[in-house]
């Protein structure tokens, strides 16, 4: 609540506040921090309740986009950045037994995962094994029946460029870029325009494009 703490003496009795060090929304309810939030429950399982508001929002957004997958779905996660370890793990925890098949192409060096208990550890181990199924970045978009999810971070321009380029082939799925709205972060306007993509940038900070073909 850093930003709100700076301004709280100047605002009159807001009915709800969403705030971190970069943004402050007044008169907005925040469902992400309630005890019914699946995103918060997941983050709690991995000792990660202190992550940014953007990360809470990313995980919740991924749950939202994929909440209707079922036992006929084939889900493929392409994690381009090691900073997107938590979102990849979140999808593994959320969807593994819900879909027919889940595959992961994880970044070369994943961030350290800190399971809070035995059960969270079991799921973390399963996640690590899912990254070993032979799925490669070159597979993006090559299976029209699969739902492809691409996760990148705007801090690495090359990663975003290759992500957008690859996403042009995707029939069903989404690309999510952490920090897309940050000042000086690459927006890759030429590539997205050429690919007929409109990147929606959220107030939480990430951008995304959906493929619904």
């Amino acid at each position, binding site marked *: 609540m850093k930003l709100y703490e700076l301004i709280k003496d100047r605002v009159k009795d807001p009915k709800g506040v969403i705030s971190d060090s970069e943004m402050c929304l007044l008169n907005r309810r925040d469902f992400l921090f309630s005890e*019914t939030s699946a995103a918060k*429950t997941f983050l709690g399982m991995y000792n990660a309740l202190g992550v940014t508001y953007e990360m809470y929002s990313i995980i919740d957004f991924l749950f939202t986009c994929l909440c209707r997958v079922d036992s006929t779905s084939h889900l493929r996660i392409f994690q381009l950045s090691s900073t997107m370890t938590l979102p990849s793990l979140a999808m593994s925890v959320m969807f*593994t037994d819900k879909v027919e098949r889940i595959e992961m192409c994880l970044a070369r060096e994943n961030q350290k995962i800190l399971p809070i*208990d035995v059960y969270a550890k079991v799921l973390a181990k399963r996640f690590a094994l899912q990254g070993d199924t032979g799925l490669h970045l070159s597979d993006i978009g090559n299976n029209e029946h699969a739902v492809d999810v691409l996760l990148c971070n705007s801090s690495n321009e090359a990663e975003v460029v290759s992500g957008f380029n690859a996403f042009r082939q995707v029939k069903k799925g989404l690309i999510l870029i952490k920090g897309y709205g940050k000042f000086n972060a690459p927006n890759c306007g030429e590539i997205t325009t050429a690919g007929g993509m409109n990147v929606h940038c959220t107030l939480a900070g990430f951008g995304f494009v959906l493929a619904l073909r």
Partner: protein
Amino acid sequence: MKNKKTDKGIEDAIAISQQIDAHLKSENYGEAMIEAEKLVSMNRSPGLAYKGLVHLRKNELDFAEAALVESYQLNPKQHLALVNLIPVYLKKRDFKKAVAFGEEAYKIFPKNESVAINYAAALMQEQKYDQSLAIFNSLYDEKSPKLPILSGLISCYRSLFQTEKSDELLAFAERLFPDSQELVRLRADTFAERDPKNALSSFEKALKNSSDNVALKWNMSLVQLRLHKFDQGWSNYDNGLKPEVGKIGRPMPTLFNKSYMITDPNELDPMKWTIVVVEQGIGDQVLFFGCFREFLIDYPKTILISEKRMRSILSRSFSSCLLYPYGFGPLIDGNIRNTNGFIPLGCIQKKYRPSVDSYISNQTPYLIPDQEKTEKYRSKLLQKTGNKQLVGISWKGGYWERAQKTKTLELDYWESILQLKDYIFVSLQYGDVEREKNRMQGRYENLKWIDGIDFKADLDSWFALACACDRVVSVSTALVHFVGAAGKKVDLLLSDRGAPFIWGLEEKKAIAYRDITIHRKTPEVTIQEFFKSVANRIKHETL
């Protein structure tokens, strides 16, 4: 020319409506639907209203709702849609909506009997008994009484504790309609608390003719449990999980609605993870935790889903168990291969508490308060009050209005107890107590009110404060379960209007906890005499 065309259209629509009415009368729903579709293409709003009505008659409630809502949205004067939305929502057990549409319809058609009955039934479900009673009374004709109106009146009087009137009407109705199954059910419900043995035979009789009546089985389970027929009671108790029973049953948190539920603990694979979900009502929750340690021995891979305010107490009391928040609900399906799905906490009772003996042989305390806080509160209170005996008190209980009326014994009646000078009485009453606080101002120096702890939100501090007392005197409320489960001494005060099943019928000691003495008020003694006798017992007992 144009007018002639319009007139012809209206005439055609009326003719089709008449045909639909005729088909509905002869229960020819297929033909009625064909005609309704024709009407939809001519005039959408009335057509949809008829379509909705056909679906309603066929008990296709989702389709009925969709058609009727659209019809009403297209034309707010589409009364056919409006009046039929009430039974749709009654059947869907969405009573708030049934009341909302009922209110609208009743304003327009106050003399329409079916509108009035449906509206009154919805009001009753929302526990607005006075309003419901007024409507049923306005419809009641003593010379030619109708069963639905009599049933409504009996239920209202029973809910308002006007037992004489409900008994009188029930006997009258039974003479008029001796074969009515509805009256057998009503008799069972009417006597469920007052005369459970009589009620049980009525339930059994009613179930002979409608063995799949979930609501009946749910009500019967509470009677069976009250009579300590735990074996059958716990099995029927699971009917409270079904949507037909609704919110007065055992509704699970909605986040778990889509997940796989197991109700028989014997079906759980101990090698897999088991998710146990707590139930609404923290009193029942604490009672059900009575066998949780035994469960954890059999199923060590257990994840307990609980509300935030219970977490510190539960993690202290059941340290071997993982504790997750409600947000885990949507994650279950993604992990169904390594879990058993979820089991509601109430469902594990059938395995571990099938008899009175199983309760009595397991009366060891199982809830652990925060010792540091307990000692801090105790020494502070003793310091302030001159080292007298501390007695925690609570006089209000129940969540539902009817339960509140059953359980509550207003503080004004507590005079005989509060006059015991050797004790300091600590209010442990949750919720708004300002009214009582103001009324008691200056009347009893030994009655203490604790500021700075939110008894509803900060359960851990409330529990510690209760455990800081030497004993607790309370009506049937969550407090009794908490301190009972901690092994503290409790005097439980029960009114003569009924009590939760676990307190049984005549026992003087609770079966589920080590040290709860039950004081039952009977209709033969006045409330003042009752409190005087409790005060005498406290006075003459060595703590």
